[in-house]
């Protein structure tokens, strides 16, 4: 026999640990020590069966900690002192007496501490802690009911098993309902207390200038830039457009205020729908696969040169939908001389190369000539130990012969402009790791890339990636962003993305989308011919498992059910709702005096008295008897013995 009390106390300690775990790394050292002391004192008290802290001392300490909180809290610094206070109160409660009320306080404080941890971090581990705390708190509250009703209640092992089975319905049911309620609980468009939420850290962003040679080494970051949910495309199509730099001043490419006049030349076969989930960043440019036709889900401005900028509040994670044609080009409308402007001073060597290219008759031959020049120079792609110079293009092309994408693009664009071809730089990202599980591209900051667009003879802007002309291009690009990630990392990222998409970013807008989709699905119910069985295949898994369970259970209980059917039959014949439990099969046979009832009792009794299960033959015989009795029910009249008439009447 195990009592409820010790189990409840253990659960209270475990719940406290689970509640505190997510905030532990944010607590001051002395508060962590207080918590550890509270737990240790509580365990010592359990061992000696008397509390270390008296009720009066506990109250005094709690009041003291509360005063400390009042002195530390302010409008701008509210969350940390609040969590500190909650942890200190929990420490006091752990060390003190543990009556039913105190245990309830431990459960409550642990739950609130876990809830308040969401104001410090949005980590997915919260879900694990939440599941654990729901499991512990719900079970603990049930045991608390037993403890409050009868502190000395004890259960046998079998009773515990039965109790645990019933208790488990609570956390399981709660978690299932949690998944439903989370999506339908009302939300506001603009939360009033947003200042309490953890601030996303925006550490990366797109610069609005390209300045090769300004740094000796390119700092690369493996941080996620964005994720794009879409179908898988070839690597050559994965150019993520961010910003267009059309103005060259000295060695610096910038974006001017020139309003381009362009018209998109559609390529209908290459249309793709993309959902982009962008991490917090410092700029307002919306990344899209080259080239975007339409952007939805965010207030934005899409200029004719394919650059989109959005209204992003608080530098937070954003989500938007893109309609893209990755093979589409844009056609220049009107004058293109803006894209021919060049710096006032250009070295002779560059002029000479440009002049050779200018001699070519059309765009394609000019391009081939320039490509040839790049290949002849045996330029290599590198981001390390680059010379800092005031003439980066010339140094790159004729001396160091090493550089990263900005060097390649600026050099190529400058030479093209000198050769009379309108050119501009495009900044963005290239490639991405496709996650098979989540069906999205993960693009990291180290996939940032610069390429160029040049106007051909038909006035169409053509994408050219000069970095591909590096002698080590294949090696450089396959080792960076397009490298395959380990499966586990891909799995973890897919889960993290799902968490972010389904939970963290779920808002009023998505609620309306959900409602709209539901309404659409409901309308579609009227036209079931559009359904595809493939879409509903997941439904069959629980149905199949449930069916197997039902069949197994049914086979096990078939004898019990047959017996109950037989007894119900006799009870109906006797005009009773049910037969008394004490009325055995032989008694029924005596009362009914019917040969079939006697036969039933004999077959069943033989098996029972020989301590064996009914075999199939006997079971079938019993079924036949019950069926025959049912057919004869009109003639089977049973009168059960009563006090007035102790004799049995059989008709």
């Amino acid at each position, binding site marked *: 026999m195990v009592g409820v009390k010790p189990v409840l106390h253990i659960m209270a300690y475990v719940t406290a640990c689970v509640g505190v775990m997510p905030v532990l790394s944010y607590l001051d050292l002395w508060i962590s020590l207080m918590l550890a002391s509270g737990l240790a004192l509580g365990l010592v008290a359990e061992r000696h069966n008397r509390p270390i802290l008296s009720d009066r001392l506990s109250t005094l300490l709690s009041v003291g900690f509360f005063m400390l909180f009042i002195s530390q809290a302010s409008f701008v610094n509210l969350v940390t002192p609040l969590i500190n206070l909650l942890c200190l109160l929990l420490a006091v409660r752990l060390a003190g007496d543990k009556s039913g009320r105190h245990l309830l306080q431990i459960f409550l404080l642990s739950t609130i501490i876990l809830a308040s941890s969401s104001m410090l971090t949005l980590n997915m581990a919260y879900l694990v802690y*939440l599941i654990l705390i729901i499991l512990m708190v719900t079970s603990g*509250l049930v045991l608390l009911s037993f403890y409050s009703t009868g502190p000395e209640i004890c259960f046998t092992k079998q009773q515990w098993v039965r109790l645990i089975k019933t208790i488990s319905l609570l956390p399981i049911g709660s978690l299932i309902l949690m998944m439903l309620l989370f999506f339908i609980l009302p939300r506001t468009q603009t939360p009033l207390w947003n200042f309490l939420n953890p601030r996303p850290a925006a550490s990366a962003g797109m610069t609005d200038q390209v300045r090769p040679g300004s740094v000796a080494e390119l700092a690369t970051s493996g941080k996620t830039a964005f994720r794009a949910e879409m179908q898988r495309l070839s690597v050559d199509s994965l150019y993520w457009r961010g910003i267009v730099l059309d103005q060259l001043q000295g060695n610096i490419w910038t974006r001017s205020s020139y309003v381009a006049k362009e018209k998109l030349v559609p390529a209908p076969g290459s249309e793709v729908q993309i959902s982009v989930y962008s991490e917090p960043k410092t700029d307002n440019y919306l990344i899209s696969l080259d080239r975007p036709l339409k952007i939805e889900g965010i207030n934005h401005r899409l200029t004719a040169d394919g650059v989109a900028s959005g209204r992003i509040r608080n530098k937070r994670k954003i989500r938007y939908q893109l309609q893209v044609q990755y093979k589409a080009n844009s056609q220049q409308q009107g004058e293109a001389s803006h894209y021919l402007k060049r710096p006032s001073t250009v070295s002779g060597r560059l002029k000479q190369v440009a002049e050779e290219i200018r001699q070519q008759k059309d765009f394609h031959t000019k391009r081939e000539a320039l490509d040839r020049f790049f290949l002849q120079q045996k330029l290599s792609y590198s981001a390390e130990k680059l010379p800092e110079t005031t003439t980066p293009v010339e140094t790159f092309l004729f001396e160091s012969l090493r550089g990263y994408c900005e060097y390649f693009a600026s050099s190529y664009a400058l030479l093209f402009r000198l050769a009379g071809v309108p050119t501009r730089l495009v900044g963005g990202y290239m490639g991405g790791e496709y996650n098979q599980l989540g069906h999205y591209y993960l693009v990291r900051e180290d996939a940032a890339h610069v390429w160029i667009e040049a106007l051909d003879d038909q006035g169409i802007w053509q994408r050219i990636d000069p970095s591909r002309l590096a002698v080590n291009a294949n090696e450089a690009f396959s080792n960076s962003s397009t490298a395959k990630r380990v499966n586990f990392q891909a799995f973890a990222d897919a889960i993290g993305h799902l968490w972010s998409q389904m939970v963290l970013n779920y808002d009023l807008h998505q609620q309306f989308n959900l409602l709209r989709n539901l309404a659409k699905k409901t309308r579609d119910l009227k036209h079931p011919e559009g359904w595809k069985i493939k879409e509903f295949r997941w439904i069959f898994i629980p149905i199949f498992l449930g069916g197997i369970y039902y069949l197994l259970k049914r086979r096990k209980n078939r004898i019990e059910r047959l017996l109950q059917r037989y007894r119900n039959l006799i009870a109906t014949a006797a005009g009773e709702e049910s037969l008394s439990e004490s009325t055995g099969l032989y008694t029924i046979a005596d009362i009914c005096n019917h040969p079939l009832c006697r036969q039933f009792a004999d077959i069943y009794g033989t098996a029972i008295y020989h301590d064996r299960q009914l075999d199939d033959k006997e079971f079938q015989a019993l079924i036949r008897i019950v069926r025959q009795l049912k057919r004869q029910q009109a003639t089977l009249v049973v009168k059960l013995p009563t006090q007035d008439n102790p004799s049995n009447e059989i008709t």
Partner: protein
Amino acid sequence: MLGFAAVNTGNNLLYLMVSALLGFMAVSGILGQRNLQRLTIEIFPEEDLFANLPANISVQLHNRRRWLPAFLLQVEIGASHRLYPAIPAGNTMKMSLPLTLAERGYQKVPDIWIRSCFPINFFIRSRRLVNQGQLLIFPQPLSVTIPLNQTESRHARHQELVQPGNDGELRNIDSYQSSDPLKAIHWKLSARHDDYKVKRLNRLGAPAVTVNLTDFSGSLEQRLSRCTFAIIQMTRQQQAVGLQLDEQRIAPAAGRNQQIKLLTELALYGRR
């Protein structure tokens, strides 16, 4: 409080917590409601019930559910209550409960309340079971001095007991059987016959008495109570006792059945 914070901060992790707690409330409500359903209660008196005297009744609670056990059920009948900590599905649990009823005759069982704080001790759910059954309550016994042989005129003597026994008068002489004690052998007679003879004796019995309600003093209820006491005492002394109620006369007899028969008549006197 958490819900308020969730709505005002728009923090979805708080929404998760609030959703889980709301789900918990819903499931606990359903479990609490189911805990009081499909229960059958049966009451059996464990001993004779007398008006104004507490007596134990047996309260049998049956959980008719197929899967779900019943927990923390408190059965209340009148001022008495008992806790049934756990009844497995399809099982029965029996407990004794003291019950006191004020009136004699057939009395309705007081309303039975089943209360439970399961699963969470924040609310106590209760369910009232209206019991259609009746209990027969005998009059409350009031002590009275029972005059036996001295009051022949009031308590008529009808017959002596002639049951076989060991301490009464000689009944007859019989042949010895193996089950007879040796001391029962009548040696003188045995000497005159070929086999052993034994003396068969009657049981030493008190005289049979017919109790008349009018012989007792006091109000009707007091007379019924005193009469009840007399019948109980005489039955306890294995005396054959009968009853005279107005024109109705019940012949004297001994034993438990006779006692119940007489007490039933007294309980229902003037209440039929």
